[in-house]
């Protein structure tokens, strides 16, 4: 699957008071590439579908916390 993350570098001004962040990211979820869902798309198993929040892998968008997890 193609990455759903996009990266850009914010402009760095000479008088910025704080250390610059190297880059920023944003998500382009799969609904941006589907204008009308085609029929008979492959499906997750039903338990997986509940866990992931959709029945169709083609609509799934992963997201991980910037804090990680414990």
């Amino acid at each position: 699957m193609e990455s759903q993350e996009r990266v850009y570098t914010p402009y760095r001004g000479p008088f910025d008071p704080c250390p610059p962040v190297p880059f920023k990211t944003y998500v382009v979820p799969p609904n941006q590439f589907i204008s009308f869902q085609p029929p008979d798309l492959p499906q997750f198993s039903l338990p997986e579908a509940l866990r992931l929040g959709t029945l169709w892998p083609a609509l799934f968008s992963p997201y991980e916390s910037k804090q990680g997890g414990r």
Partner: protein
Amino acid sequence: MWIYEKKLQYPVRVSKCDVRMARYLMEQYGGADGELAAALRYMNQRYAIPDKVIGVLTDISTEEFSHLEMIATMIYKLTKDASVQELEAAGLGPNYAQRDHALFYQNSAGVPFTATYIQAKGDPLADLYEDIAAEEKARATYQWLIDMTDDVDLQDGLKFLREREIVHALRFKESVQILIDERGKKKVF
């Protein structure tokens, strides 16, 4: 009418006693892009839109109410056993002063819910595009909430809710497409 079902849509688990997150979660409870706003927005748009998309609005609105209940569950679990000191440390002192442990339709900054969060333009495309935008904004809010906690179980429930926004946005996009394709039907009086 509506029938209540005595179960959550998704098994919500919260494993860390982190009262701070309860306050931030209120953004999705009574905030501008929250679940209450979404449910009320879609439900109310049904009365001035072509029949072909009323089903989508009804069903997504109904699902949003189950998401509202999930958010309430998270807030409930995080605050139920919290002491006054813990609530104060989490920025919920003003909430306690007004209502003890009661929930309220407010955002993470304590601003009460208002009907002005919801638009109804009576133009099917304008309304549906607002709905698509609302879903994307809610998706973003869930991302920021996921970023703010390291409780994997809380993250898990929030990830489910985030994914639902993506599916809903697609259904609204399809609804737009359905209305665009309604051609060749001459008016007959």
